[in-house]
């Protein structure tokens, strides 16, 4: 009996080490309904997103893509139902949930008076991560923004702003859950491909991505992508 238990514990430890336990997680929707402005957008939605999955939400304008993403990260309370991360509802321990989440809305949350570098450092800090200027520079370079790092965001183009916001995903020690609202907006072809491979790479390491997009993406054929039509 004891030997079996020991074996179990050993087996558990091995899976822990192999899979990086912090990355093993599930995001669950339990009969979630959303009503906006008197209109029911979706009703009794049940969903389970496991580690290693990209949830790709598509639908017409106003079908509730953004609302669903905001519900997933707790910015919007659903009319009924619950969102569960791991083994507890996300509003039970918000601070813990926030430390495992990156949400990027449909407008890049940047300060027009800050440089790209300052923006990245301050948004990482809000998300509970202290990063050095060197690490921020590396993330910006990986996003193809090395030359713009010290420019004030006000002077940059829409696509460049979007890339600065997305550079948060390239910081060291990535958070497991990424919720991205129209991340491909305003991106050029090259950045679009770079972002897709970054997302696939992330879920291959056990992360979870939920994103909305109305474009056809080359990653749609990847086995990790799960589609949800609203």
């Amino acid at each position, binding site marked *: 009996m004891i030997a079996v238990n020991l074996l179990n514990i050993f087996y558990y430890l091995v899976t822990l080490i192999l899979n990086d336990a912090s990355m093993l997680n599930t995001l669950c929707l339990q009969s979630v309904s959303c009503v906006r402005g008197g209109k029911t957008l979706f009703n009794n939605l049940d969903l389970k997103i496991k580690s290693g999955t990209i949830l790709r939400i598509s639908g017409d304008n106003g079908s509730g893509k953004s609302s669903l993403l905001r519900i997933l990260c707790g*910015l919007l309370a659903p009319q009924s139902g619950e969102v569960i991360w791991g083994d507890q509802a996300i509003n039970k321990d918000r601070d813990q949930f926030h430390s495992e989440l990156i*949400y990027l*809305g449909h407008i890049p949350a940047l300060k027009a*008076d800050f440089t790209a570098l300052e923006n990245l450092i301050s948004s990482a800090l809000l998300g509970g991560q202290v*990063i050095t200027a060197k690490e921020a520079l590396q993330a910006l370079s990986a996003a193809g923004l090395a030359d713009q790092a010290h420019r004030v965001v006000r002077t940059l183009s829409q696509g460049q702003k979007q890339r600065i916001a997305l550079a948060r995903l390239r910081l060291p020690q990535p958070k497991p859950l990424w919720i991205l609202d129209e991340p491909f907006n305003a991106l050029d072809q090259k950045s679009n491909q770079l972002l897709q491979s970054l997302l696939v790479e992330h879920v291959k390491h056990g992360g979870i991505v939920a994103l909305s997009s109305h474009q056809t993406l080359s990653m749609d054929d990847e086995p990790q992508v799960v589609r949800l039509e609203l």
Partner: protein
Amino acid sequence: MSHPASSVSIFIGIIRRDLQLALRRKSDSLSALIFFAVVASLFPLGIGPETKLLMQIAPGMLWIAALLAAMLSLHKLFTEDFIDGSLDQILLSTLPLPLVVLAKTIAHWLSSGLLLALVSPILALQFNLPFDTIGVLFLSLLLGTPLLSLIGSIGAGLTLASRGGGTLLSLIILPLVAPVLIFGAGAVESYQAGLGLTAHFSLLGAMLAIALFLAPIATAASLRIALE
């Protein structure tokens, strides 16, 4: 190396971020200061050069001018973060929301209320107030202006999503800050009359202690509602 941020470093980081933003855009702080100076200088013009009368009404008048000047920049506390999407990130911070709100309110006070208090002695000079009275006025503003920012932050959160938020904000907040005005200006008047300061300053201090604790919680709740 990157590492998880402690609550204290996030708290200080938010204050620093907002102060840096205020420094990059000095016009907001400066316009409040200039408004304060202009309003305070209009009173003697309207009332006439009667030194004794001016000396008598100076404390209350400077207090009203400071209060109105503090209202000017209040609606900016959250609107810019709301418009550029940063408010979502603030709500999703790993620091509890009331603490984030408190950090932002402290930064707002440092870039508006504190400056008003610092300038007040210079403005008080033109009313021929004695130095010790000016000192009391300065101290009362130093205790009172953080209260204006704290109570104002509740209104700023409530009126965030509404159109014409600036005017609505003043309408909501001005009645609520009346006690601050009464005890702030009252402190200087009672000092001038030779009565003690303790009662007024104690009450201001008590209000500040309560507001420091309760206002961020109320503001956090109003922000969550505004963003839904």
